[in-house]
């Protein structure tokens, strides 16, 4: 799928992107894609290249651009930096913090503890599908580690 095709996913069923005969309004979608890649600095030759030819960071920028386009109230970011290089991680982090600053709720799901410490105001741990703890980001990593693996507070003493 090309950049323009990717940029409208999830919004492709709206009236503004519908042409006649069940067709998509491709010109409008391409204009949207051009705006998104300009605003989010996605490095691509044009909007008609395959998204798979972009680097991981640029792909993620495109997804961020697409998902932020509608001013969401809640942003759920699932492993947003997995597999990205340092520069791209920095970009994604900045964007997430900006979203927070703009008053949006951001739910970050990540397996990277560093990332969670870096970005979070509150940290929730999950174990076997249940929330096992809620922490402030100044908590020590081993407390979080314990809660993540099903231990309870106070168990540290036993070890």
């Amino acid at each position, binding site marked *: *799928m090309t950049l323009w095709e990717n940029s409208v996913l999830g919004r*492709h069923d709206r009236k503004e992107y519908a042409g006649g005969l*069940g*067709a998509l309004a491709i010109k409008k979608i391409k204009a949207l894609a051009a705006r998104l890649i300009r605003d989010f600095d996605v490095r691509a030759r044009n909007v008609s290249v395959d998204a798979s030819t972009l680097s991981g960071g*640029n792909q993620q920028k495109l997804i961020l651009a697409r998902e932020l386009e509608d001013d969401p109230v809640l942003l759920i970011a699932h492993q947003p930096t997995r597999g990205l*290089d340092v*520069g791209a991680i920095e970009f994604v982090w900045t964007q997430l913090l900006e979203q927070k600053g703009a008053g949006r709720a951001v739910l970050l799901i990540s397996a990277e503890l560093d990332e969670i410490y870096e970005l979070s105001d509150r940290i929730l741990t999950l174990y076997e599908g249940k929330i096992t703890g809620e922490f402030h980001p100044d908590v020590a990593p081993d407390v979080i580690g314990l809660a993540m693996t099903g231990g309870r507070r106070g168990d540290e003493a036993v070890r």
Partner: protein
Amino acid sequence: MSARTITPTPTRSPWVELIGGQALALGGAFLFAALVGALIIRAYGVSPLEVYRIIWVYSSSELSDFARVLANATPLIFSGLAVAVAFKAGLFNIGVEGQYIVAMLTASMAALGLDFLPSALLLPAVVLNGMLGGALWALIPGLLKVRTGAHEVVTTIMMNGIALSLVAWALLDPLKSSEQGLVDLRTDIFTTKALVPTIATSLGLEEQIPGSVHLTWLFPLALLSCALVWFLLFRTRLGYEIRAIGSSSGSAEAGGISIRSLQLKAFVISGALGGLVGLNNLLGDRGYLGHNYEIGLGFAGITVAFLGRNHPLGIALAAILLGMLARGQEGIAVTFELPSETLIILEGILILSVVIAYEMVRRGLARRRQRAVRAEERAISTEGAEDAPA
């Protein structure tokens, strides 16, 4: 394996690259297939060049030869399109075979049962009934897929077997001709109002194209179908959603697309196209449904879709190519002492080499594009000068 000395040239348009890549892949594949084929033909003590020349002569020297090629291509275009539409949605419709066989049955029912209609109504009714039969036969594995998760490869293959038996039963009992002393198992002969006229009779070309060439108006319909399928896949919202679930079902679902409903729609469209496959044989050639109807056209559609890279234009060209080979086979049979399987082997080699050549070109292009993108990224990020990549 491939030469890696080419330096990235970011100014070249993606279109040029795409077309250049296509030409390179196709040319390379044909050359390779011709060379390997030559070795096999040589082993039989026949001149390969002579064989290739005969294929060309038999399929292009007279207008009627070319008409035969296009007649051969007609059902293949429909079955290639049927396979491709499903494939774009990430589904393997191996059941085009059964879908067109059932469609021949439903089309025959319309041709026999609605024969009171005038031609202008009867013919469309027969064709639509064929599409309906094919769609219905595809709907069953579609429903099994979305309701129970039964894999479509297994269910469509089984539906093929049921289709054969269903038609055999229909010919033995409900649709069996009432004519006396009939040796062949077949339906009554259709009224001529239900038949598709050949292009030759409509255009007054009977002199050049004999009646044994069944190039009918279904061929232009096949080309029109290519255009419609292209529009559907690449311009409409439905086609967009079909391609989205085919290329990444996870992202498609996150984008609010219902995978199941789309899979069902893709199956129905695929089956409806498949329903057109047998009609040239039924309405342009025989004029009745007999037990010895042409089989294998649905499986051939998989070959066509493969060769045509699941693109409507590619499918039309691939179908014409296979039509040429089939015509060439007739020439080879009368000219040389070669086993009739030779062309099947050639076809096989061609498919393999096309697949491999495309994959090689695709990887090469992807590498080049990635390099170009990386170079661009690097150029811009050193301008911005903060995070040089390690």
